């Protein structure tokens, strides 16, 4: 196992912590934080795989995922605030 493969494996080991927070909660913003960390790790995994495989196209995957994560977090934050306001 090369060094980069070991790093890929170590990066995957961070996912259970984030999934624990996603499942456990207790509030909706806590779950959003867990989801945010999962997408951060996914961006890092895509970038690391671009190193490992020599396919630089995975960098585009990382960019698209980062964009998606930002929009998802903003949308969920808007939804949480809207819901707290009373839904008007």
């Amino acid at each position, binding site marked *: 196992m090369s*060094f*980069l493969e070991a*790093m890929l494996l*170590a*990066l995957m*080991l*961070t*996912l259970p*912590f*984030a999934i*624990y*927070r996603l499942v456990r909660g207790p*509030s*909706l*913003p*806590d779950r*959003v*934080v*867990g989801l*945010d*960390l999962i997408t*951060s*790790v996914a*961006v*890092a995994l895509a*970038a*690391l795989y*671009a*190193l490992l495989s020599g396919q*630089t196209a995975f*960098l*585009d995957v*990382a*960019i698209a995922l*980062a*964009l998606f*994560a*930002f929009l998802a*977090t*903003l949308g*969920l*934050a*808007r939804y*949480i*605030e809207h*819901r*707290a*306001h009373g839904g008007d």
Partner: protein
Amino acid sequence: MLLWLVYILVLGGVFFLFIAAIGVARMPDLYNRMHATSKAGTLGVGLILLAVAVFYQELSVAARALSALAFIILTAPVAAHALGRAAYLAGVKPCEETYMDELAGHYRANHRLESVEKKSPESHP
């Protein structure tokens, strides 16, 4: 020689992402957890993207990696602020050990800061 720099950057990135993951699982309340993910998580992803830019040493790859890095550095604070504000307004409580909540009593029911409204009373009739 440069490969060692790549390895150190990747190791640092994975280390900081691991810190963020442990923080998100073990911190006592939402605001502490957001502290862990938005700072350590951003630094971890940023170091790994920097490693990609150093490893390939091509303009097209470096431009893509650095633009992704810039995008993440610019958007992570915005997303964290939006989420923290939404959680505060939704009534998520800080942990028991918190001894100072400077926003307490400053937000009205309409989600406007009282101090902002006092400065410009005509802008929010």
